[in-house]
């Protein structure tokens, strides 16, 4: 057969590795798939964070074979409560509860620890014949018929397509001259893992406190992962507190419904922002994941948006390649952009409105949002629509997210 040009993915985090595996599966062994990232040298991963994997993305992980490895350690989110209260309120009225199933027996999301997922992805990628290069992409030169990608070790790869999966501060995006549109929330998310006396029964909680959402996400073994938003200055103060003072702040927000609570690692603060790249594509280049967009974590959709990019891009590439079409050709990449960019902008606007609606002290807004949440809670079809939306199963869903092979 004719020699096939390789596809180079810059960035070996979730999106980059998942794309590599999906491409390998869809294209077979004839198209070399290369992932370049200096971070591939530091394994196993020590990332302390955990991530909610919604049903659609779990299906993608099943399709590429990693769910069987991480599934046993994943905590299903069996139900979810949403409350709206001030910090000093004695009780937190519940406005919204979800029994978290998209289909009978299929939870709408699972909590997975990042390090387990990344290690499983790396191992599977290696076993599937993905070429892993623990080095950076330094530059590239896009030509009409190919793109020459140069790595930090001096080697050059003549590829059909370069995928920028190199994160929020993407160097490739910058080099391609793609501007971003967005804003800073002046909020930070404090992330910490806690242990508690009683079992959470698979319940996720989201408390809309005036400073921003405070989410309790269940992990295996009487542990939970917290994502706790505060103003940037307050967050910096809180993470710098000595252990006992931090504990007091934690308890004030977490409550005692799960018994005694204690932090299992040092809290860390991540600045929250929102941006969408003005374009998801350039000549022989496609942006995925955080390189293309970063949204507020209020609805837990950041990673899932990135995995939707993966599923859509893998599908357009594989469909093109099976017709003999060069997957780096402009019209192929435009199909990816049409598919993903609108959805991303819509999700950005929605999460931003949620954050505006909930992160403030206005009594009027509180009344409005509580009526809204109460309505949603009493209308099953509306609720089920929201669950499907949150689970990534609305709109034109790529095959991998429907659990179908490419």
């Amino acid at each position: 057969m004719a020699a096939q040009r390789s596809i180079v993915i810059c960035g070996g985090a979730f999106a980059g590795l998942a794309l590599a595996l999906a491409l390998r599966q869809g294209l077979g062994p004839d198209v070399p798939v290369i992932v370049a990232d200096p971070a591939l040298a530091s394994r196993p991963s020590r990332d302390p964070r955990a991530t909610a994997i919604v049903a659609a993305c779990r299906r993608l992980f099943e399709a590429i074979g990693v769910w069987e490895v991480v599934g046993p350690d994943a905590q299903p989110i069996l139900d979810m409560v949403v409350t709206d209260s001030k910090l000093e309120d004695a009780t937190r009225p519940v406005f919204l509860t979800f029994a978290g199933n998209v289909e009978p027996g299929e939870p709408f999301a699972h909590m997975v620890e990042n390090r387990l997922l990344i290690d499983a992805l790396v191992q599977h990628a290696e076993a599937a014949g993905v070429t892993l290069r623990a080095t950076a992409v330094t530059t590239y030169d896009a030509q009409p018929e190919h793109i020459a990608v140069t790595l930090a070790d001096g080697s050059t790869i003549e590829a059909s397509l370069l995928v920028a999966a190199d994160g929020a501060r993407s160097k490739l995006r910058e080099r391609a001259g793609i501007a971003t549109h967005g804003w800073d929330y002046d909020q930070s998310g404090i992330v910490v893992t806690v242990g508690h006396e009683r079992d959470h029964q698979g319940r996720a909680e989201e408390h809309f406190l005036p400073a921003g959402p405070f989410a309790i996400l269940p992990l295996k073994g009487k542990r939970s992962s917290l994502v706790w938003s505060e103003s940037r200055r307050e967050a910096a103060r809180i993470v710098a507190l000595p252990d006992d003072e931090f504990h007091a702040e934690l308890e004030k927000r977490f409550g005692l419904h799960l018994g005694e609570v204690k932090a299992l690692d040092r809290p860390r603060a991540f600045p929250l922002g929102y941006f969408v790249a003005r374009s998801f594509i350039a000549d022989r280049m496609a942006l995925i994941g955080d390189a293309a967009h970063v949204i507020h974590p209020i609805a837990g959709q950041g990673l899932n948006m990135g995995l939707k990019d993966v599923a859509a891009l893998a599908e357009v590439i594989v469909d093109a390649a099976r017709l003999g079409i060069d997957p780096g050709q402009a019209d192929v990449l435009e199909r990816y952009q049409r598919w993903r960019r609108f959805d991303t902008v819509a999700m950005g606007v929605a999460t931003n409105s949620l954050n505006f609606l909930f992160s403030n002290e206005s009594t009027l807004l509180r009344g409005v949002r509580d009526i809204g949440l109460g309505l949603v809670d009493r209308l099953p079809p509306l609720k089920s629509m929201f669950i499907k939306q949150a689970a990534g199963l609305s709109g034109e869903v790529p095959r991998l997210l429907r659990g179908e092979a490419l």
Partner: protein
Amino acid sequence: MTTQTETSHAASPSVDPDEVAKFSKLSAEWWDPHGKMAPLHKINPLRLAFIRDAVCRKFDRSARSLNCLSGLRMLDIGCGAGLLCEPFARLGAQVIGVDPSESNIAAAKLHAERSHLSIDYRCTTLEQMDARERFDIVLAMEVVEHVTDVGAFLDRCAAIMKPSGLMVVSTLNRTWKSFALAIVGAEYVLRWLPRGTHQWEKFVTPEELTRHLERNKLGITEQAGVVYSPFADRWSTSSDMDVNYMVVAESLE
């Protein structure tokens, strides 16, 4: 840093650099999905899928394999700059592209070389080809409406096709709808095509095509209309064969 990967044509004494620049420009025009050939690029995935699926069915191949056409000898008549030849070569076919235009062939050769594809491009016509050559697949896509004698042309196509082979023909139907859309619409209103690209009188109806094929003991085994939806700006296959259509012909025996 940049890596120079283009083959240097200027180094060869037999090649005029001005000529290379000219064909390079022509090749870029053909291959630009937003350029003059934009309508062809939009239809192309549809044509590729129709042909690939017919070939895979006929030769019992999997359409999911990137090698699904390996070992098959394919002739593309009126190949232009290779918009069909290159994809099928990538899928493993041994492709011969013929076109009477010297500049098209030069542009096609240049592009295939830069894409690392080996395709046998010849500046010739079907009539001038060696009558002993045989092909598994004969493509006559958007050609019959331009030839002077459709019957004689299809006789030649049938003759160079192996008895076990398959022919795919696409053209424009001769209906009032095709006059309105393909001539008035495409050439005068939307200006997708230069005026005079098509002569409506030369369009071929499916009945005429069937008659010519049957004379050669070939029958139509698959057919599809190709329609454009202006709101979605998308082409799709349809049972409506009033304007653009494609057929697969195989031996009746």
